[in-house]
């Protein structure tokens, strides 16, 4: 557990960071702004995934399923019925919750865990990807497009507007995810989740209904992730099953938390920062050299993942936190 001095320092640092982020648009270039939106997006979705893996220890490699379902649900309602995304997001959450519930019930009732669970999640995501390729009401493999109005106008109700608007929305989402994860972590739910992660038999012997808590985790995680999908749809304005449901997307989601630090609160944020900045930096360097190399960034991500798993298995954040004086001598925070 952290001492109160450490907690105070951490809180001050976080608030300082938040202040910087809130003020950022005033002095950031358009390029930096869009990079930051991406970082905040990955910080958000990484936090949502972390709930399942970092806390409860269930490895989901098909999280793109919830992003995609969330995106398509809200987008379809907007394009076909003019429904505002603020209402559409409830449908998004509903659909993702249903998918998460299905996977959870099937997996946890039948006692499927570990690698098999990961494969099951991949299978569901892939199944849905191919399904949506043939789902013509939302454009099928050709893609689904949202009408883009003038950039200058801020239409918050329909999430139409300039990048700054999306920046603040992404920031709000990332902060909300952080707070939610924090409150969960220090609650009874959080303790029970960690117990399940560490040793499910022992957890059961202490009165924990492991099925119920695992279901809770997948439901929360899928609902949170679906909102990332809604954001994605209205920010990029185009959806393709091949992209949004792809395994590559699922892997992108997990890179941040793993590299930053599984099960920690700041890990996904730090991971998102590091990956996006270095990845974009790499792209900048290569195009400055006049090279255009598709796949180089992904190789970099793969190498980063490899290095972290080999040498810093708990992620970058725990070691950093200790150095900076935010973390306890050992343990997970």
């Amino acid at each position, binding site marked *: 557990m952290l001492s109160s001095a450490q907690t105070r320092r951490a809180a001050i640092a976080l608030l300082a960071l938040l202040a910087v982020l809130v003020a950022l648009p005033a002095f950031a270039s358009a390029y930096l702004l869009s990079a930051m939106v991406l970082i905040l997006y990955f910080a958000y979705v990484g936090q949502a995934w972390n709930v399942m*893996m970092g806390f409860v*220890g269930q*490895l989901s*490699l098909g999280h793109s399923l919830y992003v995609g379902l969330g995106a398509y649900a809200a987008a379809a309602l907007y394009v076909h019925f003019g429904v505002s995304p603020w209402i559409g997001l409830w449908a998004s959450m509903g659909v993702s919750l249903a998918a998460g519930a299905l996977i959870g019930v*099937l997996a946890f009732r*039948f006692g*499927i865990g*570990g*690698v*098999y669970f*990961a*494969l*099951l999640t*991949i*299978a*569901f995501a*892939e*199944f849905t990807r*191919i*399904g949506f*390729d*043939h789902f013509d009401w939302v454009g099928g*493999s050709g893609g689904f497009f949202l009408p883009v109005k003038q950039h200058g106008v801020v239409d918050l109700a329909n999430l139409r507007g300039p990048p700054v608007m999306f920046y603040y929305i992404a920031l709000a989402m990332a902060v909300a995810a952080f707070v939610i994860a924090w409150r969960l972590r220090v609650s009874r739910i959080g303790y029970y989740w960690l117990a399940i992660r560490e040793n499910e038999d022992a957890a059961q012997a202490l009165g924990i209904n492991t099925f119920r808590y695992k279901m809770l985790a997948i439901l929360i995680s899928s609902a949170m992730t679906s909102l990332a999908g809604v954001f994605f749809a209205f920010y990029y304005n185009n959806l393709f099953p091949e992209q949004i449901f792809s*395994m*590559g997307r699922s*892997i992108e989601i997990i890179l941040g938390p*793993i590299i930053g630090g599984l099960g920690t609160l700041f890990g996904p944020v730090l991971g998102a920062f590091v990956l996006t900045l270095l990845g974009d930096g790499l792209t900048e360097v290569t195009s400055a050299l006049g090279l255009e*190399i*598709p*796949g*180089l960034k*992904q*190789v970099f*991500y*793969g*190498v980063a*993942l*490899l290095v972290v*798993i*080999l040498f810093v*298995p708990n992620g970058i954040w725990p070691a950093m936190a200790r150095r900076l004086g935010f973390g306890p001598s050992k343990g997970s925070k």
Partner: protein
Amino acid sequence: MPLKSAAAIGAIVAALAALYFWRLAALPGALLGNVLVTGFLTGLVYGLMALGLSVIFGVVRVVNFAHGEMMTIAMYASVFLFAALKLDPFITLFPVAIAFFVFGYALQAGLINPFVERPEHSQFMLLVAVAIIMVNVLLMAFGPDARSVQVDYALESFEVGPLVIDKVRVYAAAVAILLASGLFAFFRVTATGRAIRACADNLLGAKVVGLNVKRYYALTFGIGSALVGAAGVLQVMLVDVTPALGPAYTLLAFVIVIVGGLGSMGGALAGGVLIGVSEALAGVAFTPSAKSMFSFALLILVLLLRPRGLLGKKAA
């Protein structure tokens, strides 16, 4: 619970039969026959690939998430050797398989063996990282366009009654069966093979009798990799290769191994044939792009109803 298993298998068979009568019964016999034969032959090559995974998973208990990527590398190797040296894949099969053996051995010995005691998801993520690197290096090197190997006899076929069967497919399937038989013999007859089976059956016991388990693990990974290498060289004669095939084949290999049964080499082949046939049928009954949906649905069903697969042994 034999009743539950019987019911499970019965349900799967019934579902498949219903599907058949709904979409396939109306098709002309010759077409159906060709599709079945093609699926069967393709399935044998799939089976060879899955055999590599089954051997690795069954013995070393590592989930080789880079399996499909390795297959894809083998396919590109064959393309490259064919383009550069005009060598028939049936010949380049051997050097590629040997190269893959060495690579697999080194990968296990160097990277994975130290990880054997780490939690399961660590090993898994390690191979995920390797897979990501492999796919994108291929993308960087070869670009996203499809490549293939067109041998001189690629368009020749055997005619057996109303059936028209590509010669390449038959040869490839024959080689697959040959290699699989060789593998069975290796594990049954040779001392090394038996030692590896010992490590798989009872790790502690194997250590107690003095077997150098880590070396056998490396050996096994090498053998599994060699099988994948061979399968890739064969497969590229049947199918075009793109870097994106990597993850698709990894999943396919897992579907086959899980459906056919973990720890069962015969299961890997049988699973391969089953998936090959069902993919071919699904491609004809619905659309070609839907054929993987079928395989995934089968995977989900098997995971839920009979996790040890059709021919598999109960997990320890």
